[in-house]
């Protein structure tokens, strides 16, 4: 399987780290501007982008086969359904 032998170059890893550090700076900067409730959504969006970098590069997900990629998406979907149903329940109590 191709995914077994894929080697990520040091340079790619270094650039990913640089991107993650820049995004950390961006999220701290964005939090210092008071936009009310929008702040939380901006922070979560930046966190998701950072998580994407870690997942795709550091955790090799970009080069994995379909089994891992789809099963990961299924987990995220499960989480989304769980969050959605709980908020649905709480909202109509």
């Amino acid at each position, binding site marked *: 399987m191709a995914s077994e032998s894929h080697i990520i170059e040091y340079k790619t890893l270094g650039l990913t780290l640089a991107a993650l550090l820049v995004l950390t700076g961006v999220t701290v900067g964005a939090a210092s501007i008071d936009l009310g409730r929008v702040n939380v959504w901006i*922070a979560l969006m930046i966190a998701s982008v950072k998580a994407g970098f870690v997942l795709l590069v550091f955790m090799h997900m970009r080069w994995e086969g379909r089994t891992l990629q789809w099963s990961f998406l299924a987990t995220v979907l499960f989480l989304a359904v769980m969050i959605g149903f709980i908020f649905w329940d709480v909202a109509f109590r």
Partner: protein
Amino acid sequence: MTAQTDPTGKKLGMWLFLYTEIVLFGGLFVLYAVYFAGYTEDFIAGAKELDLFFGVVNTIILLISSFCVAAGVTAVQKAHNRIALAGLWGALACGAIFLVNKYIEWGHKFAYGIYPGSDRLVDGPAGQNLFFGLYFVVTGLHGLHIIIGMTLLAVSLVLVTRQKITAQSNAMLENSGLYWHLVDLIWIFIFPLFYLVV
């Protein structure tokens, strides 16, 4: 007789375990979200009590440690053993610094009478009690994962030194790395939720 190995199966098994971890922390984040919606002002007041400096430093430390582990995996695949060992030592050092910071941070909170069941929290606003309750449970559980991750990395380090983890056979290192990255991934969400909602 030749030993049968199944690196793909080992990796899939690790990921299946990681999915359960995602749901575990996901459940705690849902709890956070529901209470945040109900006690927004108290949560913001609680987050203001946390030291942003420690949050930022620990975020940077974990990102660097993840890079070290990923570089270690690459180094083993390329048979660059000295770089692999340097990466693993670097990650272990980062993990140790993270825990020391956490110790100092929690110690400050305890000194101010902020700990689960403390008079200040129990008699104070309900939302702040919930915020700090979640703070201690989530960062405590995360800290436990750091300790487990460091144990796995230390075992991998020994195995690399003894040439048991090599370019041909490195599932143990890859899976330890995956665990470590997941711990980093979870912190990436903990950081904004507890330190940045001010």
